[in-house]
């Protein structure tokens, strides 16, 4: 399957969305809203739930199932309030020693006048910054699109896993091709070179694992959900064995190792 086929699958209308996973593998999901600063952004849905009996914090970036829901969720592109709500709940997880489980399906952070006025860059930066020292386990699952800094804000924890046909990219293929080829129409071509598939990213060491979609995710939904659940369970079991300080050190080393550089003697 080509990278572009995966882009289409990741964007498919009938693809399961973050909240489908939450409802399927967790119990008593209780939504908590608002950033306590400005408003409540429904592109980010967050709250508490029991995962196999253990309280966890759940944070999702999600698009909507249909046009009505997409309007409420801003087509899955958060404003700064969404990231600040996520950050508020991350900090609360630390206070109450709850792991953070994040599900991501976003084209990227919102590009709007209001988002700039309220500090989109600052809001994302703050999520990355605080993730560096959050003393609880953090796992992210990219279920559809993982677009740019808008996705990275919720993928700066201990492990990132992807569904088989999810994508994770520096920018949408359309944006990438309009910057590099000065032509948004070359998105398909761009997607093949960007290394955005789960397999490519596993190869680059950017993600920890891939969850199979068993051919057709909608036909095998229960099995896929079971695998997602198992991925989270195994991660929590691993994370439980290390102290908070070690966890943070490992997280630091994880990010520190990305992006290989070398010493060039002279120009």
């Amino acid at each position, binding site marked *: 399957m080509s990278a572009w086929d995966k882009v289409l699958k990741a964007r498919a209308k009938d693809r399961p969305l973050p909240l489908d996973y939450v409802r399927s593998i967790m119990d008593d999901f209780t939504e908590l809203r608002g950033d306590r600063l400005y408003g409540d952004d429904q592109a980010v849905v967050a709250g508490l739930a029991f995962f196999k009996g253990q309280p966890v914090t759940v944070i999702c970036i999600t698009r909507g199932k249909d046009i009505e829901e997409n309007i409420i969720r801003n087509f899955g592109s958060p404003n700064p309030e969404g990231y600040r709500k996520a950050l508020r709940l991350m900090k609360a997880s630390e206070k109450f020693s709850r792991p953070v489980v994040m599900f991501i399906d976003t084209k990227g952070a919102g590009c709007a006048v209001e988002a700039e006025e309220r500090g989109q860059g600052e809001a994302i*930066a703050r999520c990355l910054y605080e993730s560096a020292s959050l003393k609880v386990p953090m796992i992210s699952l990219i279920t559809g699109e993982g677009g740019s800094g808008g996705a*990275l804000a919720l993928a700066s924890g201990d492990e990132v896993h992807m569904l088989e046909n999810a994508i994770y990219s520096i920018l949408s293929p359309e944006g990438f091709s309009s910057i590099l080829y000065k032509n948004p129409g070359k998105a398909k071509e761009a997607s093949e070179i960007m290394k955005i598939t789960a397999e490519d990213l596993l190869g680059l060491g950017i993600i920890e694992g891939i969850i199979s979609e068993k051919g057709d995710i909608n036909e095998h939904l229960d099995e896929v959900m079971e695998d997602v659940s198992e991925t989270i369970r195994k991660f929590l079991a691993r994370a439980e064995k290390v102290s908070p300080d070690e966890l943070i050190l490992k997280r630091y080393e994880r990010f520190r190792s990305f*992006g290989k550089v070398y010493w060039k003697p002279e120009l």
Partner: protein
Amino acid sequence: MAIFKKKRNYFTLDTHSVEQKEKTEIKPSVPEGMWHKCRGCEKMILKEDLMKNHLICPRCGTYERMGAWERIRLIADEGSFREINGNIVGRNPLDFPGYEAKIEKVQEKTKTFEGIITGYCTISGIRVAMGVMEPGFIMGSMGSAVGEKVASLAEFAEFYNLPLLIFSASGGARMQEGIVSLMTKASFAIKKHSEKGLLYISIPTDPTTGGVTASFAMLGDIIIAEPKTLIGFAGRRVIEGTIRKELPADFQSAEFLLSHGFLDAVVKRKEMKAYLAKLLQLHGGRRL
């Protein structure tokens, strides 16, 4: 504490000072020739006059963009800057066609290895670790090498208990390196520096956008910028394309950010050094 334990040395020292560079390598960021057309009033000005005036148009006061070494000359005490990690360069994680050749061409043109110069110096006698991004290096884009150098600089500052200053200038993440260029080691290292109780002053310069705005440029304990500096997350054209209307001229300017609460102050170029020195003193910085 385990968190501060290091498995390896992240930084290496290199000791060429600005003076050595000056003799051979510093090239002004304004184009060659005796005359320069101001991007504000569009009048022709003598390049010599422009250079003497710190790249500020003597007629209309428009600021020209400043190259990294020129900025260092403006801010660091004369002869005090020492570069570290100067030879660090990135790889080609996407095997992007023509990327290595492009880098080599830019290196040749700018006489710089990568999009940021990092090192240490004194400012009015106070020691600091300082990073200055080069706007002319593939539009100041942030690739693996820039991330690595910022992270190493923050670790260096943390190790030696130095305040950290970063002048950023960036079109955003470097597309040619794909998602690898987004991996947030700089933000992580700055957080670690901060937890040691050390000061970080961020000075976004014209233009600072995209992935740099969404990471280290917005994480300063104090964030200041020169007048009219462009600072934003999404590109102006992207937003205009979405809302299908033209945005006001001051959108995403330093003044716009100041009025929305995202900057501590707008500081004129000629006053920047004295302003930084004052901030450093207010945080306990002492003259050597």
